[in-house]
C-alpha cells in the first residue's frame, strides 16, 4: 500500500458523515383496508388511538380507503395518488386469505412499497387472534434497522418521529456474518494481505462507521429536544436471527426500515424477509 493510500485512508476515516436532524412532515395519513365500511371505521379509530402520541389528532388529517374503494392494485395506487398522503397505513395480504400463512406480503403491499415514495406503516393483520393486543398500546420502543446506518438520515428522521416523548429509539445495524466471512475467506487466500490484520481492521471499521453515525444522531436528536432515549447497536451476526433477538430482548414495538433499493425493483435487502417473518411487530417501510 502506498503512503498516499495510507494517508488518504486516515483522512477518509476522519471525514465522517454527520446526522443532521430533519423532522419529517406527516400531516396526511391514508388508511388502506379490505374491511367493510363499519369495521373499517372501527379499525381506523383503533389505529388513530395507537398512533395518537406521535401523530396528534389536531395536526393529522386522516382518510380511509375501504374494501369497496379498490379491487385491483391499480385502484389502490390511484387512491393513494388522489389523496397524496404523507403516510399510508395498511397490513399484509389485502383482499387475500394468504395472511394466515407467513410467506408473503401480498401483491398490494409489495407493489405499494415500491411504486409510491410514501412511507408505509404495516400493522398486524386485523383478523389475527392477537391483533387487538398488538396495537392496543402506543409504541414506546422503536428500532431503526439499517443497511449501512451511515448516511441514512431519513431512516433516523422517521424513526424519531414515531418515538414518543419519553420513549426509546434503538439505532441498530447488524453486519451479515455470512457475507463478511465469504470476503474474509477470500482474503485468507491472498498472500499479499495479512489475514489477521484484515479481519480485525475490516470488522472494527464496519462497526465503527455505524457507531460514529449513531453517536452523531444521538447528539443531534438530543439537541433537537425530542426527549427520547437513543441507543446505538452495531454488531456482526446472522442478520434475521439477530434482529429477531434484538426485537425480543429490546421489546420493540415498531420496526423502521428502508424498503426501496435504488438499483433494483425488488424490496430492499433485509426488508423483505423481516417484513414477511415479523408479522406481529408493526413495521414502518420507507
Amino acid at each position, binding site marked *: 500500500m502506498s*503512503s*498516499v493510500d495510507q*494517508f*488518504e485512508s*486516515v483522512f477518509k*476515516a476522519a*471525514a*465522517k458523515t454527520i446526522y443532521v436532524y430533519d423532522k419529517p412532515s406527516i400531516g396526511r395519513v391514508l388508511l388502506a383496508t379490505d374491511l367493510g365500511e363499519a369495521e373499517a371505521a372501527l379499525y381506523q379509530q383503533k389505529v388513530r388511538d395507537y398512533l395518537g402520541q406521535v401523530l396528534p389528532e389536531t395536526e393529522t388529517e386522516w382518510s380511509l380507503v375501504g374494501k369497496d374503494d379498490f379491487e385491483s392494485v391499480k385502484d389502490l395506487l390511484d387512491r393513494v395518488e388522489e389523496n397524496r398522503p404523507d403516510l399510508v397505513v395498511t397490513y399484509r395480504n389485502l383482499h387475500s386469505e394468504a395472511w394466515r400463512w407467513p410467506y408473503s406480503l401480498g401483491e398490494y403491499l409489495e407493489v405499494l412499497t415500491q411504486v409510491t415514495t410514501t412511507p408505509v406503516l404495516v400493522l398486524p393483520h386485523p383478523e389475527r387472534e392477537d391483533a387487538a393486543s398488538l396495537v392496543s398500546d402506543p409504541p414506546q420502543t422503536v428500532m431503526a434497522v439499517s443497511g449501512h446506518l451511515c448516511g441514512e438520515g431519513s431512516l433516523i428522521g422517521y424513526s424519531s418521529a414515531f418515538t414518543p416523548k419519553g420513549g426509546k429509539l434503538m439505532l441498530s445495524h447488524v453486519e451479515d456474518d455470512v457475507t463478511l466471512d465469504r470476503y474474509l475467506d477470500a482474503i485468507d487466500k491472498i498472500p499479499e494481505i495479512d489475514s489477521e490484520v484484515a479481519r480485525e481492521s475490516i470488522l472494527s471499521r464496519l462497526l465503527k462507521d455505524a457507531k*460514529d453515525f449513531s453517536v452523531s444522531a444521538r447528539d443531534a436528536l438530543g439537541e433537537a429536544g425530542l426527549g427520547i432515549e437513543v441507543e446505538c447497536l452495531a454488531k456482526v451476526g446472522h442478520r434475521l436471527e439477530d434482529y429477531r433477538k434484538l426485537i425480543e430482548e429490546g421489546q420493540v414495538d415498531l420496526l423502521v426500515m428502508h424498503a426501496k433499493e435504488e438499483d433494483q425493483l425488488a424490496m430492499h435487502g433485509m426488508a423483505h424477509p423481516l417484513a414477511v417473518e415479523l408479522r406481529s411487530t408493526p413495521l414502518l417501510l420507507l
Partner: protein
Amino acid sequence: MNSPFQLLAAASAHAVPASVTYLFLGLLACMILCLAMEEKIHAKKSVIVGVFAILALFLGTWFGLLPFDDVGALVIGGHAISLPVYVPGVDWEVIAIILGSSLFVDVTSKSGLFTWVAVKLTKLSRGDPLRLLILYGVMTVVFSAVLNNVTAMIIVGSLTGVSLKKLDRSEKLLGFLLVEGLLTNIGGLLTLISSVPNIIVGKTAGIEFIDFFIKASPYVVIATVVTIWMGAKLFKISSLKSDEERASAKALVAGFDENEGIESPGFFRFGAIMTFVFIATVAMTSQLPVVSDLGLGFVALAFAGIMLVRYKAVADRFYKAIDWDLLFFFVCLFAVINVMEHAQVLALIGEWIMPILGLGDSAGPASMMVASAVASSVTDNIPLAAMLAKILGGIPDVANNPDSPYWWAVIFGANLGGNITPIGSASTLVSVTIIHKYGLKLSFAGFVKVAMPYALIQLALGVGYLLLVS
C-alpha cells in the same frame, strides 16, 4: 596563475589522462540521462546509480585511479583500520540524517499528530476554497520544512483529494494539487534539513541550521505568498459568495474528526513534544555540548530511536517502510561522485563553469542559480547538488565562506528547478501521481505549461533576493 579547479585537480594524488577523464565524464552523463529517464526505463534510482557505481569502481580500479593504499592503511584513534575503497567516499552524515529523520517522521506520524494538524486546519477553513488554499499552502510549506517535501506532499495532497470531494469542489483539485506541489519545493528551502540538496550543500559549506533558516525564511515567505496568490488567480479559486454556501461548506467540514487518526492520546502528546524538541535540538546542534561533536546525523538517529521505543515490539515494521531505494541511491551516488573526483571529471566540469564564476559577484551567482535550476528540472537535483557541492568545495574562496552566494545559488537553483518539470523533484512527481490518481489529465508538457509562470517568478524572486542579501 592556476584556476581553482586546477588546484582541485592538483589535489588528486595522480595525473589522469584526458581520454580517461572523458570516458568517466561519458559515464556520468549516461547516469544522469538514465536518472532523467527513470520513468521510461522502469528502473529504481538505486538500481540505476548502483549499476553505474559498479562500472565506475571497476573502471576506476582498472585505470588505477582509486586510493587503495590510503584506505588500506587508515589509522583512526591509534588503530589501523582497513576499509573498502568505496566506503570513505560516502558521506555517512548525510545518510544518517536522511535515515534518522525519515524514521522519526514515520514513527511520529503514527501518533496522528500530522493528520490532526491537517484536519484542524481543514475545519479552520470552514470549507471556504480560498481559505482552504491558503491554509493548505502554508501547511505544505511548514510540513515540507519540518518533515520533508515528499511526506508533506503525500499528507497534504491526500487530504486535499478527500476534503475537496467532500466539499463537492473536485473541479478545483488540479489547481490545489499543483500549487501544493510547487510549494513543497519552496518549503524545502526553509531549513537545512528540509531537502537533500540543502543537507548536502549546507553540510559541505558549513552552514549552521539557524543561519540557514534566517537567510532562507524571508524568501520562503515571499515566494509562498506569491505562489498562493497566483494559484488563486490562475485557477479561479475564490471565497464563497453567499451565506447559504458558507453555511453548507461549514457543515460539511464540521464532519471531519481530527481525533480519528489518534490511537493513543498519550503518544499523541509525546509525538507533539518530541517534534518540537527534535526541531529545537536540530536548530541548536552546533551550540549543544557533546551533541555538537556527534552531529546532526546522530541527533536524527537518536530521536528516531527514542520514538521507536513506543513500538519496540514491532519496530521491524518501520524498518520495512524505510525508503531503501533512496538510501542505496545516496550510497551509490556518493561512490560514483568519489570515483569521478579521482578521475578528474569534477575538475573538468569545474573548468567549464568557470565562466559563470567569472561573471562577477552579481551575475555569477544569478547565472549559477538559473543554470542549477535548469539542470535540476530535467534530472535529479541530488546528483547535481552533490557534484556542485564537491566542485565549489574545491574553490578556496567559496569553500571557506559559508555565506558565499554560490552555495545559496546552488541550493536555490536545485530546489526551485524542481518546479519547472514534473520530474524535477520527487515531491512534484508525487503531486502529479495524486493528480493522475484522481483521474485528472496532466501530461509532461501540460505540467510545464501550467507550472512555468510560477517557476519563472519564483526564480526571478530568488535571483533578486540572492543579490539583495549577498
